[in-house]
């Protein structure tokens, strides 16, 4: 995680304040190419705000977010973002949604790429159905396809398991495992400790805006992680 030539995103003393609320506080974090980093934390810890700042949707109050050697955080097209919302149009079909976003991102053969992503996510049979008729699981896979359409350097996943049943969660985990095997750089926020641990190579715990725990997956005992998580969140810094 410390090889400077492999660094993709570097967050330095990033702080975000909304009125009197300090949502994110002095966060230093380095994400390297190929990292699969899971951020755990209780509700209100500032995880989503942190991800929105990395995506460029929200500007930090202070601190800097640098992509590779760029000083300016302007690489909107380098990030794929899966949030609580799908960013999909319910009145358009799955294929139309992906072709639309593909064109916005300037992908030359947008339709071909969209078809390819639909096959990859197992949605080829539903490509002419309107997204409003999709199940939550199908919609979430299409959301992931939308986020990956332009081959982003960094994939941001904010609670992707929300609203998925066990079957949907399992399919989604398999898709994420595939992304990990491809060597994609992923920043995942989840309350699902089991799924997060299964996938990630790096672990971060955020609480009250601060990053209170950072370790590589190998340093953490999976069977003892829940106890460790509560100890860190309830006990303060580590």
């Amino acid at each position, binding site marked *: 995680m410390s090889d400077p030539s492999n660094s993709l995103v570097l967050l330095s003393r990033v702080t975000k304040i909304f009125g009197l609320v300090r949502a994110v506080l002095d966060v230093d974090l380095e994400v390297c190419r190929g990292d699969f980093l899971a951020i755990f934390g209780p509700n209100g810890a500032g995880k989503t705000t942190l991800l929105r700042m990395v*995506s*460029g*949707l*929200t*500007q930090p109050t202070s601190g800097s977010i640098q992509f590779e050697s760029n000083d300016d955080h302007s690489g*909107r*097209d380098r*990030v794929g*973002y899966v*949030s*609580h*919302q*799908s*960013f*999909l*149009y*319910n*009145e*358009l079909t799955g294929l*139309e949604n992906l072709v*639309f*976003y593909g*064109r*916005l*991102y*300037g992908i030359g053969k947008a339709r071909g790429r969209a078809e390819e992503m639909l096959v990859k996510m197992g949605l080829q049979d539903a490509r002419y159905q*309107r997204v409003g008729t999709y199940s939550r699981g199908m919609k979430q896979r299409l959301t992931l396809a*939308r986020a990956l359409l332009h081959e982003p350097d960094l994939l941001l996943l904010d609670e992707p398991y929300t609203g998925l049943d066990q079957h949907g969660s399992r399919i989604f985990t398999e898709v994420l495992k595939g992304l990990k095997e491809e060597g994609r750089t992923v920043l995942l926020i989840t309350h699902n400790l089991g799924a997060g641990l299964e996938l990630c190579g790096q672990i971060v715990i955020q609480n009250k805006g601060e990053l209170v725990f950072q370790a590589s997956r190998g340093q953490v005992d999976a069977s003892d992680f829940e106890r460790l998580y509560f100890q860190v969140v309830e006990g303060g810094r580590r």
Partner: protein
Amino acid sequence: MNQVALIWILAEKDLKVEYRSPQAFLNTVFFALLILVIFNFAFDPGSQATREATPGILWVALLFPGIIQLNRSFQAEREEGTLYGLILSPTDRGVLFLGKFIANWAFLVVVDFLVLGAFVIFYNFSFSVQMLWVAWIIILASVGFAAVGTVFAAMLSSIRTREVLLPILLFPIIIPIILAAVNGTQEILILEEAQFLDRWLQLLIAFDVIFVAAGFLLFDYVVAD
């Protein structure tokens, strides 16, 4: 991909969404027709006073229902977070504005032409060359209305009271458009000689250019966090 193609892709998407889920279209048309009917009942249709008030009645029926569409255009983008999807794309924010503005404008023009047809029937006018001039005023006035409306609708889209705030903020800004549209229509329909029609049309064109350019330049700030 060139910017003109991107503008069309954005506008086409909005029109397709509206076509497949036409609640806003139907609500807007019915509200406009309702206004025409209410005024028709409220005033004596045969009197000269009513005749002189018809340009004002027409523009009330055209502008107030348009608010429904403007509100709806960004509310729909907020529901599934698609506005964030647009903002995250590398597309220039000014281009996003133009796409949205063109879709809103096209929508308003279609609704307005339907309302104009009903207006001709309800208020005993005839489908003549005069009405082509009124249609031309509608096209021009809708440009400015849609441009300012698109900017304000985007600005207010995350606010709970947006339905109330949009007309309060929008109408004072477009007073020059209302003034030019009503007076221009009056010259065509009521007055025997159209002395100042050129000036009203020039005023509309000037405001259209200003408002579209302002929307294009300011949209980056409007949708920023």
